[in-house]
């Protein structure tokens, strides 16, 4: 089997996304959930770069990747800020403590 860069990159993308989604399903800690989101976004960044390489348009791909990094960082910051507030109110960083809104 011919192991080329696109195949490796593709596997990396799927791997990162898989880890991220699995973590979102299994992890209860708020900080870890933010990290899981970050892992998924990193996979997407690789996907952008791979797409740019396949299409021979690295300039667009890289500029998009940069914007995604910025946007994603903002989301992470907001998420962590929320986590801090939640910690202040519940004393815990656990999603299972956040199930008052149900049914």
């Amino acid at each position, binding site marked *: 089997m011919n192991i080329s860069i696109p195949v490796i990159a593709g596997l990396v993308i799927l791997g990162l996304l898989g880890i991220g*989604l699995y973590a*979102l*399903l*299994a*992890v*209860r800690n708020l900080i870890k*959930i933010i990290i899981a989101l970050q892992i998924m976004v990193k996979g997407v960044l690789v996907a952008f770069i791979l797409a740019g390489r396949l299409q021979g348009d690295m300039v667009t791909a890289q500029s998009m990747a940069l914007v995604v990094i910025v946007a994603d960082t903002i989301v992470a910051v907001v998420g962590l800020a929320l986590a801090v507030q939640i910690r202040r109110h519940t004393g815990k960083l656990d*999603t*299972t403590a*956040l*199930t*008052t*809104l*149900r*049914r």
Partner: protein
Amino acid sequence: MATTLLLLTIAIPWVGGLIVWLVGNKHTGLQHRIAVAFALLAGGAGVALIPYSSSQIVVNLPLGSVFGNFTFVADGLGVFLTVVATVIGSLAVIFSVDYMQGEDQLGRYYAMVLFFIGAMSGLVLTSNMLLVFFFWEITALCSYALISFHNDDPKAVAGGIKALIITQIGGVGLLAGALLLYAVTGSMDFNAFIANPALMPAKWLGIMAFGFLIAAAAKSAQFPFQTWLPDAMEAPTPISALIHAATMVNAGVYLMARFYPAFKDVPGWTTAVLLVGMITALMAAVMALVSNDLKRVLAYSTVSQLGYMFYAIGAGGIYASQFHLFSHSIFKALLFLGAGAVIHSVGTRDMRQMGGLGKQMPLVRAVFIIGGLALAGIPILNGFWSKEMVLEAGLANAPVWTYIVMLIGAGITALYTFRCVWMVFYGEPHSDQHVHDAGPAMKVALIPLAFATLTSWLLAGSFGKLLGPETLPAHGIEISSLGEVIHEVLSLPTLIALIVIALGLAAWWWRGRLTGLSNALKGVGQAAADSFGFEAINRGIVKGTQSAAEALRATQTGLLNWNIFGIIAGLIIVLAVVIFGG
């Protein structure tokens, strides 16, 4: 002129309703007066519309594609039902002045009553299918609001919501038919379609015809949708009169009569209408016989009489059905308002706690008996002529056994009517409360109705002309004089019918000697009191839906990981659909 009058009949009640509501509940006297004034004005406009009836479109507001042209036609059928809605409606409003004296939230009450009357006029006068559905749903909305007028009473709320939901479920049939009409013919105007039903392919026509039948049956509380009507008796009594005599339940009969020329060749349709009418007429009559609630007796008798109208339509007797509708609206309004006067003074609806009221309320007794005789079909009151017309139509065009069933129904009608009159006005007084006579506004409403019950049949000829070929070209109603009606009614079958009715009367007279028979029928009576099991079906459906809803709530766990699982599951399903289904 016709344009102005037509718009006025719809607009006057609506504007009046808005004004009454805006006046506010602090000025009750003013509210009563405004409501009566606008109701009477609407009645006047409705009556003034009679000479202008024709099959021409008199109002046309083009709105564009899916909404079609908002068209209104003042043809005979429409004008007739408008007059019934506005005139009987205004009498119910006058009656309310006494009945609702001292009640809270009068603004809402009168606004909804007037809105109701206007919507009913709109329903029968428009020729745009969307507007038919539009007004149809407004009448459902108003009936719901009025039935559950006493919102603090859970039974009233349940009754209102039940009426709303059942008529809406039936309304889906009307919706489907209306949508089909537009989708196939590309026009919302139904007159062209009635003139030429071949516009619709047979397959769609069948769906449309039965969809309309479902809608009409639900609206007119026909089998198997009759269960909402007895619960609707929680409404204030003038509302019952309005719903049962002037507006709501007539809508179903109107729909069937209006579209009869288009649907009569659909295989099985006329038979279905005939059977729905027959089953309802008999079943409701039996239920009326065993009920002890005065208003429920009248409600079941309404259902039963509407069954006669459906039966007549199924047998092709459009004139007979509409003539019966005409008579029925008058005498049933009279009966309901009379019952309202009784209930208002006694304070209960249970007939077992009444009795001997005739002495205290002589006028109410007199008019109630007139109404009862008309309901039973005793000559020469209006109910006699129209019911005989219905039976003649059945004998001429329907299987003989259905005619016999309807005759039995007529006998039971006489029986329960006399039972009801007896229990209320004669016999031993059971209540030691002080009973006061009907108020002046009540009498003002009752006397014209009693007079009309005695005489309205004299209008049979002009009524026939109103529905004649000039205004309803597709219906082929050829009766143009009173003589024709009298000639048709005075025949051998009428004698048989009268004998059956007399037997019904006799059965009440000799009720003591017929104990064996009544014991034998006890099981039937028990089943009838339970609405022949349909109530249980309703409850089952409601309960099933509610427990499904309750069970589904468990899926909202509130746990984030579970929520993420939803996203991933969704992604997997969509990917699978794209891969395997694309």
